[in-house]
């Protein structure tokens, strides 16, 4: 009853990795065939793209740009998670405030990302603060909505239990409230990260002089497709690594009590 049976899950995972590899190989093959047929400098084959990637990596350009982008992602992600959670929890706790601010939330949810970016640059200048703010403002409403949902679903039963056994504020937060909100935080973090990646690139293309977005913008002006694809690929790899090495282990740890 208490033993966790691991074998079938591992066999399943191995199979999944195999399938992923096969499917990726198929994608590369189709790409190669398409490039061979097209014979165009606007559709380079996989090998040409990898060569550009290696060249950029050796020159150090690739790393410095990815590092710049990652830093912006990290800052705006943390800011948005923090402020969005605070707003979401406050609205979930307080129905009156929720009724009042719901319309504001809908307004910001539907405000196009591009509008926020342009306005931030106009109001705060072409600065790092404006860039990070623009990304964070885009994501905050999403986080707030998810966390509001989580707060509404907090168990009254467990809250009463904590009250009877005199847990106090800190203990209740740590052992009762936060674990209940964890799945919602995780959902907000995952969908949020996906959103932040994309918006950071746009912000960089518009008003920054480094980062993957900036590099893509230059490549676009030169119609340098191998460069565009090289950065895109490198970026996908980095995002996947972060997902696999950071997010998934955290989730697995947070979920180990589940049946």
């Amino acid at each position, binding site marked *: *009853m*208490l033993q966790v049976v691991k074998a079938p899950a591992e066999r399943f995972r191995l199979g999944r990795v195999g399938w992923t590899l096969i499917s990726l190989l198929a994608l590369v093959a189709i790409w190669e065939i398409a490039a061979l047929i097209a014979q165009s400098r606007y559709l380079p084959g996989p090998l040409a793209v990898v060569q550009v990637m290696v060249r950029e990596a050796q020159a150090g350009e690739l790393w410095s740009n990815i590092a710049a982008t990652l830093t912006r992602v990290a800052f705006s992600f943390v800011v948005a998670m923090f402020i969005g959670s605070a707003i979401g929890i406050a609205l979930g706790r307080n129905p009156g405030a929720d009724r009042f601010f719901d319309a504001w939330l809908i307004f910001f949810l539907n405000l196009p990302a591009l509008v926020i970016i342009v306005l931030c640059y106009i109001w705060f200048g072409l600065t790092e603060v404006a860039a990070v703010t623009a990304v964070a403002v885009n994501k905050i409403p999403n986080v707030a909505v998810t966390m509001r949902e989580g707060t509404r679903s907090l168990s009254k*039963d*467990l809250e*009463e*239990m904590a*009250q*009877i*056994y005199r*847990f106090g504020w800190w*203990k209740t937060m740590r*052992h*009762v409230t936060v*674990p209940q909100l964890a799945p919602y935080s995780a959902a907000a973090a995952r969908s949020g990260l996906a959103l932040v990646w994309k918006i950071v690139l746009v912000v960089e293309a518009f008003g920054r002089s480094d980062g993957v977005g900036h590099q893509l913008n230059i490549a676009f002006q030169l119609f340098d497709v191998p460069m565009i694809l090289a950065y895109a690929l490198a970026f996908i790899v980095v995002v996947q690594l972060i997902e696999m090495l950071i997010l998934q282990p955290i989730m697995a740890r947070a979920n*180990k*009590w*589940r*049946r």
Partner: protein
Amino acid sequence: MAPLTHALSVAVRKKVFPAVGLRSEIQVLKDITFKVDPGSFVVITGPSGGGKTTLLNIIAGLDKDYEGRIDFGGDPRVAYVFQSPRLLPWRTVYENIALVLPPGDPRLANIPELIERVGLKEAATAYPEMISLGMQRRAALARAFILEPEFLLMDEPFVSLDDPTAQSLRELLVELWSRRPTTVLFVTHDRAEAVMLGTRILRLSGGSASIAEDVPVPLSVADRLNREKVHAEQRRIFGNG
């Protein structure tokens, strides 16, 4: 441990559930007044939906929307065993029990023995969702007892268990209660359970519940573990009906 000194006095004049939609206001409790002597085991029984849980929640301080007064004669330690175990699913059995004590509390040292006594030795490091409901209820019981509470409130803590499991938990409760004096308020609709456990039974009437009967149950601890004696006493108190 220190002798029990707090006497509880309950005086609930009126408790209503407000009107919702087409349903009009409902008066659940009316003029319920009683005192509970230190060390007694008071069972509150009555028809289901008759306001027993509401009364217990008022006494526990969870429901403050009523007319009347609850006086514990100070600020005693109170534990509450709810109708569902209400364990934290993300904490192990041991952690759930330890969490009701402050860090560094000397009572933390008693947890392993208590866990063994309630039969959860093998499950101490398990998460609640991985053990049976009966085991979860044992954990909830241990969580209440580790506190060495002066008052123990219990709301049908053994419902939806099969009879042998429920009976073994009742025996465990009698044993724990006789070793560690505690004033208990126990809500149930099960008459045999009421007689087996209570030193006094308060029967609430249906409708706007008030106290219909207040009966002492003069059984020794040994008698309570004897089913025949419990049945005989049950017939004496409630008749054959």
